[in-house]
């Protein structure tokens, strides 16, 4: 487990650049690393959720129509 974190961390440090940004608040290194890794995952989950809901709606509509017909 520790190795996995080390790997993640090294990866992120490797990605660092010297370009400047300004903020009056210290964002915290851990928070930036977390966002860099998980932002992508969160976005992917969000996209998948949209497709999943579309998929669910598609079937709900079909079954919904059948139900009405049955009535």
């Amino acid at each position, binding site marked *: 487990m520790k190795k996995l*974190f*080390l790997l993640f*961390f090294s990866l992120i*440090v490797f*990605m*660092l*650049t*010297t*370009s*400047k*940004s300004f*903020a*009056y*608040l*210290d*964002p*915290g*290194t*851990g*928070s*930036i*690393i*977390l*966002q*860099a890794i*998980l*932002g*992508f995952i*969160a*976005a992917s*989950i*969000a*996209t998948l959720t949209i497709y999943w809901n579309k998929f669910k709606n598609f079937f709900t509509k079909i079954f919904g129509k059948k139900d009405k017909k049955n009535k």
Partner: protein
Amino acid sequence: MIFDKGSFRDQAGKIFYLNNKVYRIITNEGSERLKFLEENQIIEKSIKDNYLIKSKVVSNNIINESLSKNEIVYEHEKIPYISYPYEWSFSQLKAAALHHLEFHLYLLDIGANLIDASAYNIQFIGNKPIFIDLLSLKKYEEGEYWIGHKQFCENFLNPLILQSKKGVYFNNWFKGNLEGIKTEDLNNILSFKDKLSYNIFIQVYLLNKFDQSSKKSTKKFKSDFKKKFSKKSFYALLRQIKNFIKSLKPKKNKTIWEDYSQNNTYDQNEEIKKIECVSEFISKNKFQILCDLGCNNGLYSTLALEKGTKKVVGFDYDINAIEEAYNMSKRKNYNFLPLYLDASNPSTRIGWNESERKSFKDRAKFDCVLALAFEHHLSLAKNIPLEEVLEWIISIAPKGLIEFVPKNDQTVQKMLEIKGDIFHDYTEENFEKYIRKNAKIITKKNITKSGRKIYEYER
């Protein structure tokens, strides 16, 4: 012109008070930040959609100090009573957190962003949360990270998780630590089972892990990444936390006073008498802002509102009662803000130079105070001399009602059952004498068989 001692962290502007109004000077640096917001009507839109406090640019002439060309003065709507996150119940902090996230998502939609995520930037007007810091808004730059993420976790998310998962009230901890609850501390408290939740695993366990590894690392951390944070990811992160917070519920411990309104020692006629007494007093006065000490679930606060008082701020040391009162205020849309206050240990000044956040006394500027079935909780339960208790209550407002609970009352008898009666000073005569030291007694009404009395005073 008095500058607010809490608005110094951001160099872009300062809050000041003049003639009972609230203003903000925007410095040259802040004007630069606001330019984009003004050009795109972001401030107007945010105010119109009830996210941001009402604010308008006013003439620079209102202040004597000469301002440079780019400096602007804004006037903000005055918040009736400034409250702090450690005075809120779970649902209030949750409502503030959701307001913050919803506002952030709204801003991203219109091309703006927030530079921080401080819970002190949210205030309540009645039961409604509102964002008060205009200078937290800026233009959204493609690829930027959520700078306030860590602050959001400490100010909002961690206290909510603590109470929701462990049943530990966050208030006193938050009060002792200006910035809320550290992720490291929360991580140490949560169990393995708690961390199996996807959001807790990420926002507490992983965040702490990354923080700790970065502290140990000797490599210099640079403030930006080549790899940008996509807007899609930004949205997803905010929405994920928002949905998680929506799902959180407080783990409640049963407290003594939460059922007080159902299980008190009054019989029905006595309660009617008390209600009549309060109604009569409120109706003959036109109060702007009333303080209800020991408000419990808000019975007398709402009565005061119904009888013509404009705003009520209630205080109680029973946090579950505050939770119930807030939910009721929200449901019925009352201009009633209930807050947690232990009167024997009220909020003090905290933060830099002991003046960043104000004390209860600094903020307690009310037209009227109701202290019904309240004084004995200080004088008998906490051994605070009756004379000091009355002086303290009367100092809060020029007019008010104070209930005297005699020793033969059932509640007091129960309080003294184990402790024994060591309070020789606690008599009706002394009660009246101590009121007279600070104010005039206008009326005195007997409301129960046991001899409870309500005194109307004016100072």
